[in-house]
Every structure is written in C-alpha cells, then in structure tokens.
C-alpha cells in the first residue's frame, strides 16, 4: 500500500511519532548523564572555592583538598558561607552572583577572619566576551582584589569598587576595571556591592568576637603541604 505522505493525517501522526521519539531519547540521555553532570558542577564549584582560597590543586584531587580545608557551612537565610581553614587561619568564602553584559556572572570571595580584608577572589561567567569581559576569571584581575578592605574606616561595609583607571572612588577601596569591558567590570562592582552590603548583611554584621573557634587540632600536616 502506498501511503499518501502529504495527507493531513499522515503529517500529524508522523510529527507526533517524531516528537515522542526525540523526547524519550533526550529524557533518557538526560537521566543517564545527570549524575555525571551534577558531579561536574559540584567539582567545578569546589575548584572555584579553592581558587578563591588560593590553594593550588593542580597535581592532586581537588575534591579531597576541598574536604580537608572547608569544614563548615554557615547558613543565613538563603545565603551560605563556607568556613575554611587555610594554613591554620580561618577564612570565610562567600558565593556571589550578579549580572554581566551577556549573562550572569558569579564568583567566590574569600575573607579573612576579620570579615574585612579580602584574602582571595574567584570569578566565573556564563558568556562574557572572550578576551574582554571574560578576563575577569584571569589571575591579574583577581589578584588586584587581594588585601583590599570591604569596610571603611568606621567599620561599616562599603564593598570594593571596580573603576576605570584614573577614576577615584569615594569612601571605599577600588581596583582597576578591565579596559574594553566596561559593562562586565561595572557588573562585578555592582555584584560585590549588592552582595556584601545587602545580602550578606547578617553574616557581616556579627563581627568576630575574639577567637571563639578553638580550631580543633586539624590535620595540620596535610594543610601545610598545600602551601604554594
């Protein structure tokens, strides 16, 4: 029997079958690959946190180092703060998220125990322009944040500004923006400001009451090995 491939009924049935087959196929693939993808996403997050903590994981298993360093998670509403112990000092890692030029940007900010000095920072982005905005993930830009203070002299949180070279911030510390990537740089600045001044208010308002965590004798040796 020769089918009339141009009849309406044939077309409807054909498309239905095609769509169902494709849907089943993709659903199966998604289910099968999900565990691996989730593992990758988690590993990526751990690597980024290690990056913010300036820990070199190149030659070993990042997940393992992560679990030896990061030993606590504080929750403030929907915000989480990771507490890490690097070379015997407590560091707080704050996840950040904001908007860049083409899509979302995010990052992790590691603060010293005084909740003021920036220890290290790591950024990520969904699709900033390669060679321009995408440079926020590169070391020179990230390193320019190190040692900056997120509080002003009075102790209130003012964040750090990302400004074009030559411009001066008022009442807060600053780093140089990436030339040619004004919107991404502004996005980083806004993200830091928004997150630190508003979203992490609760965490940052409790100033460290002198040394409470009697750092339980951690495996000091393994930590020392991680020194760069």
């Amino acid at each position, binding site marked *: 029997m020769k089918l009339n491939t*141009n009849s309406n009924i044939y077309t409807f049935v*054909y498309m239905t079958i095609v769509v169902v087959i494709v849907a089943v*196929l993709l659903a199966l693939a998604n289910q099968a*690959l999900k565990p691996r993808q989730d593992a*990758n996403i988690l590993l*990526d997050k751990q690597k980024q946190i290690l990056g913010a903590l300036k820990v070199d994981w190149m030659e070993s298993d990042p997940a393992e180092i992560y679990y030896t360093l990061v030993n606590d998670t504080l929750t403030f509403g929907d915000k989480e703060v990771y507490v890490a112990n690097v070379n015997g000092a407590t560091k707080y890692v704050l996840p950040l998220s904001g908007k860049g030029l083409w899509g979302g940007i995010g990052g992790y900010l590691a603060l010293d125990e005084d909740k003021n000095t920036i220890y290290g920072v790591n950024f990520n982005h969904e699709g900033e322009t390669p060679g321009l905005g995408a440079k926020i993930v590169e070391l020179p830009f990230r390193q320019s944040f190190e040692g900056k203070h997120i509080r002003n002299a009075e102790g209130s949180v003012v964040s750090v500004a990302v400004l074009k070279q030559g411009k001066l911030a008022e009442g807060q510390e600053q780093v140089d923006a990436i030339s*040619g990537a004004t919107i991404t740089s502004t996005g980083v600045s806004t993200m830091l400001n928004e997150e630190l001044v508003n979203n992490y208010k609760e965490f940052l308002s409790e100033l460290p009451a002198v040394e409470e965590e009697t750092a339980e004798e951690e495996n000091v040796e393994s930590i020392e090995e991680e020194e760069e």
Partner: protein
Amino acid sequence: MALSQKTKDTLLGPLNANNPVVVQILGICSALAVTVQLKPALVMGIAVTIIVAMSNVIVSLIRNTIPMRVRIIVQLVVVAALVTLVSEILKAFAYDVAMQLSVYLGLIITNCILMGRLEAFAMTNKVWDSFLDGLGNGLGYALVLVIVAFVRELLGSGQLLGFQVIPESFYAAGYENCGMMLMPAMALILVGCVIWAHRSINEEKK
C-alpha cells in the same frame, strides 16, 4: 578501496572549491563568535562536523517518509535533538569545554550550514553520500574557523591554544597585542581576507 570521483567531490569539495563558509557564505555568525581563541574554535568545528554528518544521515534515512509540507520542521527537530544530546554529553564528560562554548553550542541549531545541507543534499541523496557530504561540510567549516582563530589568538593575545608563543622579549621591545583582533568585527574582516585569498587562488586555476 579507491574512492570514486563523485565520492571524492562530495567529501573534499566543501573543503575548498565549494566551502560552506567562504564560497556559500553560510554559518558566518558562529564563525565570528567562537574564533577569539583556537581551542573553542576547534571544539566548535568538531561539534558541527559531528552534528552535520549525523543529522545528514538521519534525515537521509527517513527522507522518503518525511511529509513535504513539514520537512523543515522535521529537519529542525532532528538537529535540535542532536545538538541537545551533544551538549549534554559535553557537560558530562568535558565540562570545561562546554562552559567555554556556552551559548554557541546551543546555537549550532541555527547554523545555516546544517539546514542548508539537510535541505539541499540529505533530502535527495543516499545515506553514505549524505554522511560524506556532512563530514566534508563540517570540516570545511572547521577549517575556516581554525584559520581565523589562529590569526586572532596569535595577534590578539600572543598565544596559541593558551600557550604563550610570542616571547616576552618582544613585549619588552615595545610589541603590543592587537586588541582589535579580539573584536568580532576583526573576525569578519579576516573571513573577508580568507575569501579574497581563496577566490584569487581559484581564479588562477581556471
């Protein structure tokens, strides 16, 4: 097995004489977006090659059953399914690369080369020929991407595949990376240069 002349033309034609990018001017948009560095350009070229070849095969297999009035939709469904599959696989096994290609991976769906090959070739040709045609066109596309990305990464960042190739002493002597190369406009100009070179070489042959 010696390849027949027709097979050779199907496979190798798109690499040069009938190149999808420089002769048919298809797929330019993604060529501009992913050619700042060599690595994403390579991965993109491979991904497109696999997807064109496979969708060509699938469409060629079912070409006699496809209702003519909705053939473009069927082709699109096939391409979209393959692209989603490739993107899922990359996320599971090459997460870094998937992140680097970000949206452009999904945008392969709208790459004109795919629809062009499906409509012009796979709908009317046998499976094996369609596979070769897809392979050839994908590689032709990848070739142009790699040429453009090579020049852009070398002159724009002084690197190739992320490794520094222009020595520090050059920078000390006053050499500077050409920031212009990082802009999408420069990719268009470079593609233009490739087309120019390609046309003048092929002109001489005739």
